[in-house]
């Protein structure tokens, strides 16, 4: 029990720190995409391989940044409430049992911005410093 409390305390602390440090990671789609808003659970379904389409019906291609990159950690912590370890375990189970493949991953914010801009089905995340006209921010309720 104390260890669990400690863990909880740590994660709360981390959460706080990451929120302070990475609150400016935003979810984006191509400016051409019709998707401008998603709920947290819709976003989680797309990123955890449970749903391959947006709520409107168009195909969704989630894109990750490199594992353990600041944007990666911030995104999963902030929007899905998951640690990188949990994400890794999740995909381990899916891949091992042959039920799915993790999102394609981009090396950094810049390549992410380029990829999203060029793929109207794609959804990704990046530091808002890298936003440009080709992208639109998806508001997450």
């Amino acid at each position, binding site marked *: 029990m104390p260890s669990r409390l400690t863990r909880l305390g740590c994660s709360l602390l981390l959460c706080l720190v990451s929120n302070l440090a990475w609150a400016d990671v935003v979810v984006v789609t191509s400016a051409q995409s019709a998707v401008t808003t998603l709920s947290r659970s819709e976003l989680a379904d797309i990123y955890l391989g449970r749903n391959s389409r947006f709520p409107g019906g168009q195909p969704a291609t989630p894109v*990750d940044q*490199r*594992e353990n990159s600041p944007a990666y950690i911030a995104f999963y912590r902030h929007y899905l409430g998951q640690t990188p370890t949990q*994400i*890794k*375990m999740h*995909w*381990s*189970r899916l*891949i*091992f*049992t*042959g039920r799915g*493949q*993790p999102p*394609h*991953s981009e090396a950094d914010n810049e390549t992410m911005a380029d990829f999203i801009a060029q793929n109207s089905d794609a959804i990704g995340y990046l530091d808002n410093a890298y936003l440009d006209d080709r992208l639109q921010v998806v508001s997450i309720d």
Partner: protein
Amino acid sequence: MAETYEAQVVRALREIDTTLRLVRYSLDARPPQEVLDELHQQGMLPPTLLFEVRISDAEGRTVASTHPQPAHQPNVTMVQAEGMGIELLGSGEGAEQPLAFSRRLSEESANPQGAVSVLVDGAYFVSGYDMDTLGVLGVLALAEEEGTFLVRRTGNDLFSGEKIDYEDLLTDNDGIGQPALVRSSEWDGVDRYLVARQLFEFPVAIVVGLSQTEQLDAAESMQRSYYLRAWLVSLAGLVILALLGWLSWKLQQVQAKVLEERLDHARRAEYLAFHDNLTGLPNRAYFSRLLTRGMQHARRYDKQLALLFLDLDRFKAINDSLGHDAGDELLQEISRRLGHSVRESDTVARLGGDEFVVLLPEIIEQEQISHVANKILAAVSAPFTLVGQEFRITVSIGIARYPADGEDEQTLMKHADVAMYHAKEEGKNNAQFYSEQLKSDSLERLALESSLRKALERQEFTLYYQSKLDMATGRVIGMEALLRWQHPELGLILPKQFIPLAEENGLIVPIGRWVIYTACRQNVAWLKAGLPQMSMAVNLSARQFLDDGLLRDIKGALQASGMAPELLEVEITESMMMVDMQKAVGVLQELRKIGVRIAIDDFGTGYSSLSKLQALPLDTIKIDGSFIQDLLNNAGDRSLTEAIIDLGKSLGLTIVAEGVESAEQVAYLRQHACDQVQGFYMHEPQPAVDAARSVQERLDSESIP
């Protein structure tokens, strides 16, 4: 379960091997990193999230990788043999150590040029561990031939590098076609159902195990839960049974209570049904039973019994004057006295009103009955105190005996009733035995009553007339109409024989009306026939006098006949006045208004004081015949007669003497200034024709001298 895991591991290993072969095939003159990047871009490599693809040189140093290399990244050991080598990177047990799957870059060359490896966390191979099926103490593991667990997972804990006896693990343990055996796991000492199977293509074995205790626990806990449920169900059943029992007991209680109440009610109702609620004595219904039973008993043992029928004298008067409460109190006291007057074995009952009966069983002699009757007469006539007032009441008793006077209940009761009436007739306050004579009397009475009802319509009534003579002139100055009943079988019946009966049943009113009409008509007829003008006196009975139709009848008769009202004289008695003085005075005043004269009949026999006469609107006083009878012998009667005459004179009334039978009496009365006389000495009552002739004869004899 083992089969599924085996298939999953084989597929994963094949994919890894495919990657190794692909990378090796793709390598060309370009720098290895460039080749890797290109493959990654093409999506030909497994997800970098889990898998690192690395190319090492002959010394094991990393020359290219899909992942950035940290400083102290352990190198991959050179694969010595052909085929795929599997290596657990890092050292020590328990840590999450990556597994490296490697192939030499060149299979042919004895001189190694380097190797291509896929690195993946051992956790990957046990990520299919399912808590629901394997439990906390199950095991999922990958073992390599050298006797090491590449990775082992038990619950959420991951281990790697544990040394094991590979051969022993695999012996008789492949789980194909046979149940899994229980054995103690050498690595953690847990007893498990274990399946360990060598893979066909790869130098590894899969291990799947379920904890014996955990499975048993599950079974046991299921068993426990079944036991618990059984217990709970039984307990619930018991509770329900107890509840049902309690409810039925309650129901029974309630039913018993209701039954008890009903019984009480029934007993009470029965008591009320058979007892008089004022006195608590048996009532008519109950007495009827007792009498029947008594008669049965007497018949069987050849005994007599006596029935005493009691009726209080003047009870109605007491009830009316003192009120019903006093009447009730009196009845209660009477019933107490009756109870004390008889033996225990005798029965006293109240039939209703002021009627009581006493049943005397086992009578031997008539004296016994008389003795009881006298005791009752004495007890009842002892003074009472009611409403602070002392007074006496008497009782009339009729006695009927079983079987002499009747052999059934109805007859016995009727005969006792007849005897009681006889006792009343005999002056009340006495007891009379029933006899056949009484029966015939009562039958006569019954016949009389029924024929009386028909007498009017059959015109059996007739009027006799008796004349009144004026003392001064000796002339007939008036007639008195006297009612007679010419009964077809019994002959002529006098008023005193049937007037009380007519008073009782109310026939007196129509009969009286007939008398008034007939008398008035007769009076006018005589006048027309040439007789001198005479007054006509008519007797009124008590009931008739108080009847509301009296005035209307008199007016009607006067009108119908055309008779002068002042010729009509109504005769009433003192006692009639005393019943309701106020009303009587009112009636008399009304009569005076229309001119009718009023005479008081039988004067002197009543108890009214002479002074009361003053208050009454009277014209005539008729002195009762009983005074006149002894007038010459009895000084008392004489002085009374004189006093009446004096008083009448002083009040300006006409004085008539009745029942005059001798010349001496006439002489005396004349001497004392009596106005008129009436009696046998002059004329007896006669039918109209005879009466008219008598008057005519007297007139003729008068005119002769």
